[in-house]
């Protein structure tokens, strides 16, 4: 329950990167003010090398401002940050970064190939490598057959694909994607997920700024959730979604809930028992106990929330969906078995009783 394969892989890669490499991105109390408007109130976060890092937050939370600060496109009014070991905005370091802006726009009078050649030149790539880089990038984003067409003939989605190709030129160590699928159809979104997966497999750090939570949930190793310019949570995806409990499907045992209740707050959900706050180490004991009392255990699964549920609960915009449960009074079996289970609310003032 303490990590998905993706999360474990990222952790392993981060360790393998070694102490000399340091984090890909590190900010401390980064602040940005536009006149009296505070866009970032003090952003502190760390993005490890080789991980896919999701940067989430509601509209106006300061996500794009943070991205611009990291890339040196805007100057902070306070705090500090380092990207790939150099101060934010370091011109030489930008050679090692790929960037797809949220507001993507490329020279409409150029062909896709010419746009990529321009960025090869701006990124100071070796001229001998341009052809290979351009062909590979176009193929990766599915624009190989439109390489000689002018950008002005491209749909919005194709321009975003081109932007992604631009960001991938020169094998960057860090790829910053600001809402990379905003103009894409479901097929395009799937393609982007695959591209991010291939970047992960090459140990490229991906900083993904997105408000599409399902997208983030599928591809990210860790996330930071920002609200009003501050990080309100920064943790691994598994850690974020894991409720710290299990759901057990058990039959043939009256009083199963009472037995499970000794391991943690328990509620009955039809044939399932939801046991909260149980550690990984105690799960085998729970199963043994249920079996010892004559129960048939059909399934044991970790309890998880969706990212959306967790996101909303962290922002205080929705009830924390993990209810408080009194563990020891619920009788087993049937719909009526939930009698006596107390469901409370953690934070929402408008909660149901």
């Amino acid at each position, binding site marked *: 329950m303490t990590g998905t394969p993706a999360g474990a892989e990222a952790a392993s890669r981060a360790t393998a990167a070694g102490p000399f490499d340091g984090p890909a991105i590190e900010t401390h109390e980064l602040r940005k003010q536009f006149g009296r408007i505070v866009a970032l109130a003090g952003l502190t976060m760390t993005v490890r090398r080789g991980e896919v890092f999701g940067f989430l937050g509601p509209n106006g939370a300061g996500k794009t401002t943070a991205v611009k600060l990291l890339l040196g496109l805007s100057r902070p009014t306070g705090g500090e940050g380092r990207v790939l070991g150099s101060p934010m905005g370091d011109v030489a370091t*930008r*050679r090692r970064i790929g960037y797809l802006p949220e507001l993507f726009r490329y020279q409409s009078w150029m062909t896709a190939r010419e746009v990529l050649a321009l960025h090869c*030149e*701006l990124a100071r790539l070796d001229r001998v490598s341009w052809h290979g880089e351009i062909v590979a990038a176009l193929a990766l984003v599915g624009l190989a057959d439109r390489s000689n067409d002018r950008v002005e003939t491209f749909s919005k989605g194709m321009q975003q694909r081109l932007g992604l190709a631009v960001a991938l030129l020169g094998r960057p160590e860090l790829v910053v994607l600001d809402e990379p699928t905003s103009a894409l159809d479901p097929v395009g979104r799937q393609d982007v997920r695959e591209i991010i997966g291939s970047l992960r497999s090459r140990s490229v750090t991906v900083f993904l700024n997105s408000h599409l939570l399902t997208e983030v949930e599928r591809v990210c190793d860790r996330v930071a959730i920002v609200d009003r310019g501050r990080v309100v949570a920064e943790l691994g995806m598994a850690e974020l979604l894991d409720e710290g409990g299990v759901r057990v499907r058990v039959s043939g045992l009256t009083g199963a809930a009472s037995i499970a209740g000794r391991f943690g707050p328990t509620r009955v959900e039809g044939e399932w028992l939801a046991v909260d706050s149980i550690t990984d180490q105690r799960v085998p004991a729970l199963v043994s106990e249920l079996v010892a009392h004559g129960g048939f255990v059909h399934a044991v699964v970790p309890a998880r929330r969706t990212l959306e549920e967790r996101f909303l609960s962290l922002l205080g915009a929705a009830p924390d969906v993990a209810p408080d449960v009194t563990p020891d009074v619920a009788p087993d079996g049937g719909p009526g078995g939930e009698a006596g289970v107390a469901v409370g609310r953690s934070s929402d003032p408008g909660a149901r009783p």
Partner: protein
Amino acid sequence: MNGGAVFVIARLTLREAFRRRLLWALVGLTVLLVAATGWLFGKAAELTPLEGGAQQLVLSQLLVMIAFMFSFVLTMTAAFAAAPAIGPEIENGLLLAVLARPVRRSDVLLGRWVGLAIVLVGYSLAAGYLELAVVALMSGYLPVDPMVAPLYLAAEALVLLTLALVFSTRIAPVASGSIAVVGFGLAWMGGIAGGIGDYLDNDSLRTAGTIAHLILPSDTLWRGAMFALEPPPDVLAAAGAQARIFTVSPFFAGTPPPLTWLAWCAAWIVAALVIGNLLLRRREL
């Protein structure tokens, strides 16, 4: 500043001018202009009742007026080309992808300036020399310094290009273009005021002209172009009283601009680019 990036942006600007058919439009208009002035000068030389120095004086005034129109075309071209060169590219996001590369904002500003300057200077010189050749061919009139006049016009266009580009870092293209065009007009009027001040020996008018030349030195260069397009001094002397009438004309320059003023023009361009860079650096993307 990164010379490589400046070069890339300058080349990009040149390619854009070709692709967007800016140069082709200018070439087409120039062919029309040259054909029309060739016909006009042929007729003027044929029909004028004057001869010798007096005829040369009339033809020179005609040429100066055409040069003034040409300088206005150059001003408009500079304004239209430079005003949308920076600001709109920030607003529509085009510069975000460029500036995320190892490229400084000063590289973009300077690259844009170099690219547009090559277009404008190249066009000014080509069209200017062609025009003078056609005038000489059709009317026989050869000004005092035909090789220098188009250089002054090109330099004047550079001043106005710089003005429009600097303002384009902070304000909308319509506004920055308008400032360049109106600035051209005001500087010209300031120059006329200064000329009248000289003629009448009036300090207020003279000072107004000096201030106008300091703020926007385009008229200094225009006066250099006018002087270069006038007849040689011996022809003016031969024209006698008729020549003196022209000295109060806004289309007459008695002397070429002093070297100090030409140095000020160069310094003004450099200073304006430095200010433009500061403005661009402080702009939020």
